[in-house]
Every structure is written in C-alpha cells, then in structure tokens.
C-alpha cells in the first residue's frame, strides 16, 4: 500500500513536471519575448512612458495590418510553410500602394479618396496575380509570392525612379498627427482592420470555410467546398490589407521612401509567427498577429532606446524567429510522441 502511494505520488510529480515542461515549451517564445522586453525596459525605463508606448503602438500598426493579411493567407493555405499558404509579397504590395498614393497626392493633385482607390487597385492587382499563379497555374505560394515580391520591387523603382516622394496633403497630416478619443489615427485604423478581419475569419461562415480549406483540405472537398476560390480570396484580401497599411505608411513617413518593403517583410513574418504562440493550439490567428506586431514594435523601440546598434537589430530579429519556430517545432514533436 505504502509503496503504491509513493509511486502514485511520484507519478503525479512526474506528470506535474511534464505539464510544466509542456507549458514552458508551448509558451517558450512568449516567455523569452517577455524576458527580453523586461530586460530592455529595465535598462531604458522610458520604454514604458506613455509617449513611448504610444509611438510603439503607432509603429505596430502597419506591421499588424500586413500581418493580418499574411494570417489570412496562412489560415486559408495551411501552415505547412513549404507547400502551405504564405504571402511574402504583401510588404511589396504595401510599398507599391504607398508609392501610388504618394505620387497621386503630390504629382497628380488627386483627392485623398482617389489616391487611396488607386493604391487599393494596385495592391489588389498584385493579390490577384498571386491568386492566379497559385490557384490556376499551380505554383507553390512561396515561389509565386517571392517572384511577385521581386517584380513589384522593380515596378516600384520604375514608378518612383528610386527617389523619395514627399507628401504634405492635409488628410495625410491629419492621420499622422491627430487622434480619435485619445487614440492616434494609425492605431484606430489598425483596430478597425483587426475588428473587420477577425470577425470575417473567426466568426462568419466564409471564415469557417477558409479555415477548413487550410486545416483539412480533404475534409473541405468532401464537404463540397471548392478550395481554389477560398484560397484565391485570401490573397485578394491580403492585397486589400496591404493598401490599408499603405495609408499608415504614407502618413508615418510623410510620403514614400525607397526600400520600406524590406524592413516590413521581416517584421511581418516575425509578428505573424510569433503571434501563433498566443493561440491555444499554437496556430496563426488574426488576434495573434496583432499581439505579435505589438511585441515586435515594442522590441524594436526597446532596442533603439537601449542604443543598440542598427546592425544588431536584424540579428536579434533573426534569432527571435528561430527561437519561436524552434519552440513550435519542439511542441509539434512532443505532441506526436
């Protein structure tokens, strides 16, 4: 009896330890991220001052909006990163829309709405090309969107002749400087896009179908869903998200600067996949993408406030991507055992 009791106690201990390890592995990226943020804030306390928090959130907004787009594509295409859904061209679409909007406002004297609509047309066109390449031609999303990323990058260079475009349009200045109920306009835009896309993907029947297509293609097909249309729609929606992000980018940079797509690409991928750690099943979600973007922005700000040299920032982000995806991979391995 006594022996049994002891062994049960040990077993419980072991289970507890196992569970603790499970939590550590599953929440590993978040814990590490948290520790890093605490460390950064400890060395530069003004990271947590109201003005710094506000600027971090403003920085987070374009990252979050493009990350929502990527989240949709990943949800609809499945999270296998080689053959599953991924859209690397979203930052390029956003940069293209930024260039178009800036050019329309500065050189063509268009109204803000006109400029925005032209930007939407450009970004959605890129999304449509991706959709075509993936669903009709049958390219893997990685290859298709890597190729469109490169071509759109070239097209942007032609449009802007690789020069900066300054914008001093009143609407742009308003978006940059004003706030609504105490919340800066870029953050408002982020929250609105979040609400719309989170509701669409996590609360409507369209969203449920997109999730089915990405989660279990065979089940989706036997349920009578035509997967191609849903996959194509996620690429178009990602283009739309890129155009909204472009509005924030135009306002934040007072125009268009060459090369904004590169930085956005890292931050977008990092935010989306770090965000997966916030969901219960460790999968990419729209709310997760937003949390991921906020974390990434705080980290960037913290690194700057700690006077970390610019050269190190890429390395930190690369290391974080690796930590996050390694933790996710270890978790998958554990759950398979």
């Amino acid at each position, binding site marked *: 009896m006594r022996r049994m009791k002891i062994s049960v106690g040990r077993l419980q201990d072991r289970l507890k330890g196992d569970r603790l390890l499970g939590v550590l592995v599953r929440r590993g990226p978040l814990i590490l991220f948290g520790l890093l943020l605490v460390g950064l804030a400890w060395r530069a306390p003004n990271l947590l001052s109201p003005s710094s928090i506000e600027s971090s959130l403003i920085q987070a907004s374009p990252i979050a909006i493009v990350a929502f787009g990527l989240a949709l594509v990943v949800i609809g295409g499945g999270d296998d990163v080689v053959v599953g859904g991924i859209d690397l061209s979203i930052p390029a679409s956003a940069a293209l829309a930024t260039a178009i909007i800036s050019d329309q406002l500065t050189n063509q004297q268009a109204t803000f709405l006109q400029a925005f609509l032209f930007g939407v047309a450009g970004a959605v066109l890129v999304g449509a090309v991706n959709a075509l390449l993936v669903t009709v031609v049958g390219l893997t999303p990685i290859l298709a969107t890597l*190729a469109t990323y490169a071509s759109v990058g070239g097209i942007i260079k032609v449009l802007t002749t690789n020069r900066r475009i300054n914008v001093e349009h009143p609407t742009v200045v308003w978006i940059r400087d004003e706030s609504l109920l105490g919340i800066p306009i870029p953050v408002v835009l982020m929250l609105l896009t979040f609400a719309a896309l989170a509701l669409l993907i996590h609360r409507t029947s369209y969203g449920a179908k997109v999730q089915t297509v990405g989660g279990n293609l065979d089940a989706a097909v036997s349920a009578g869903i035509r997967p191609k249309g849903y996959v194509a729609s996620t690429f178009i929606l990602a283009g739309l998200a890129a155009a909204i992000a472009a509005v924030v980018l135009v306002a934040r940079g007072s125009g268009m600067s060459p090369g904004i797509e590169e930085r956005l690409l890292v931050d977008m991928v990092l935010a989306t996949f770090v965000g997966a750690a916030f969901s219960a099943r460790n999968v990419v979600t729209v709310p997760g993408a937003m949390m991921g973007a906020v974390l990434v922005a705080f980290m960037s700000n913290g690194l700057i406030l700690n006077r970390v040299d610019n050269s190190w920032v890429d390395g930190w982000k690369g290391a974080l991507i*690796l930590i996050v995806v390694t933790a996710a991979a270890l978790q998958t391995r554990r759950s398979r055992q």
Partner: protein
Amino acid sequence: MMSLEVGPPRASLLAKASIWLVKYAFLLLFGAMVIYFTSQTEVFLTSSNVLNILRGSVIVLIIALALTVVISSGGIDLSVGVALDFGAWFAIVSMASWGLPWPLALVVAVFAGSLIGALNALLIVGLGVTPFLATLGTFFIGRSIQQIGTGGGANINYRQAPEGFVALTQGSFFGMSMILWIGIALIVVYFVVLELSTHGRRISSLGMQQTAARVAGINTERYRIWVYVGSAATAAIGGILLSSGLRIYTPLAGFSYLLDGIAAVFIGASMHRDGRPNVPGTLVGVLFLVTLGTGLDLLGIDFNVKAALKGVILVIAIALALLVSQRLPRVEAWFDRLGKKSRA
C-alpha cells in the same frame, strides 16, 4: 472508310508535333529571345559577348546547383546568399588581415560558408524547424553578422590580392578562362552525384516521399544534413569566385543571386519528364536568366526599368514553365483519346 484509314496517322503526326511544341516551349521561347536580341543589337551574338554571358553565368550557376540539390530533397535554402557572402568575406579577410597564403584562405572560406549550412542542418534536422523559416532566420542572422563585422556594411578592398587567387577567375587554362573550367567542373560533379549516383536517387526520394524513403532504410537525417552543409559550401565557392573577380568583398551582395537561383531550378524542373529539379535543366534555366539580363543591358534599358522587366519576365517564365509541365500529360492524354476515337 477512307477517314478510318487516313485518320490515325494524321492525328499521331499532329500529336507528335503538339507534344514536341509543348515539351520544348521553353527552349523555343529562349531561342526567340536570342533571335530578338541579335536583331536589336549588333554585338549580341559575337563570340566575346557569348563568352561574357557564359562567364557571368558561373556564380548564378553555382547558387542554382546548390539549390537544385536542396529543392530536390524537398527543402529550400534562403540563406545561400549569406553563405556566398561568408565565402567572399573570409577569403578576403584571411588573406588581407590574417596573412594566410591563398590556398589556405580558400579552405577557411569554404569552412566559414559551411558553418551557415551546419546551423541550418541543426535547426532543420536536429530541431525539426521547417526549412523555409530556419533558413530565413539564418539569413537575417548572417546579414546582421556581416553588418556588425564590417562596421555597418562597408566594402573591404584588397587590391594587392595574390596572383594565384585572382587567377581563379581571370587566369586561363588551355585557352579557356579559368572560371569557366571551375563552372564546368562543378556541373560535372553535381551531374554525377545527383543524376548518376545512388546518393542522388536517395536525395530525390527524400523530396518525393520522405516517410517512404525512411521506411526503405535510407538514413534520411544524414542525407538532409549533408544537403544543407553541401549547399552552403557550394555557395561559399561562388563567394570565393566573386571576391577573386572583383578583389573586393561587398557585404550582403549574395542576396541578389537567390531569386535567380530558385527561378533557374524551377525552370529546369519544368523541362524534366516528372517535373523534378535536375542539373541539365538548371543549366538551361541559368543561361536563360543571364542571357535575358545581358540582353536587356545591351538594349540600353534604364536600370530601374530593367529590374522591373526582369522581375515580370521571371514571373511569366516560372508560370509558363510550370504550366507546360502540367499540361504535357493532358495534351498527350487528349491526343491518345482522339487517336482511340478515330480508330473506333
């Protein structure tokens, strides 16, 4: 009665022609491009320009060969550009700063590049991270290391590079430029390993059915480790050639080869019977892309426009190549049915 006798041979002739046309659509496009550039510029089809194109292809070819093996094994390596940079960087630094003789510098350079591959292998094989995200991570880390090491990305000049090192690209051997010999040697090595040896079959079987390959008794982990380390080591050789040709190390120069390399592999795969990455196909893909770039240069197109045009043609070429490989069985099947119908 008459049509019954005449029908089948005519259909099969048409079928043969159509299948040939679809199968070699890409080569036809390549030919049309060469004819166009020749008609538009006087120097395009001169021997010196053709040699220029071939010489300019070698580094892209090296990256593409490395990627052919990785993609054939079912993976991807986005960090080949960084491995190339490391090769160039350590070749120059070990001679200029550490005073090593150049043959030893080559060993150091290949070793430094292989470290990138070893990190990838650790992440992908050891920890189970997907190749895309793992190599994306090493790409950013490698980029950052270069910026830190060069004080923000400054070039390292080495005008007094030893003659032997410079001769790797500029010297000649039996009347042919040395860099071409190196390119040919690498093609032969890769062709033998990937297309003729059992190892190549096994690597390819990883890409088609990894579980089946493991069940069949292949040590998949060891092969995957070698695939990533080999890819990085090959890319480092490309970096050595780049720094030997220019006598300079430019940080982050490797990234520009990545997309061309991937595109060449997929163009090549489209020409394969089963759509698999293969060495001869990759060679055609590389020649196509470099010819396109050189031709656009000779037409005197603005730098920015060239970037856009090349990107757009790349998308079209990859899409066309894949469409062709997918349609071919269908075209064959269609003519098959047609033949049966007319015989019936």
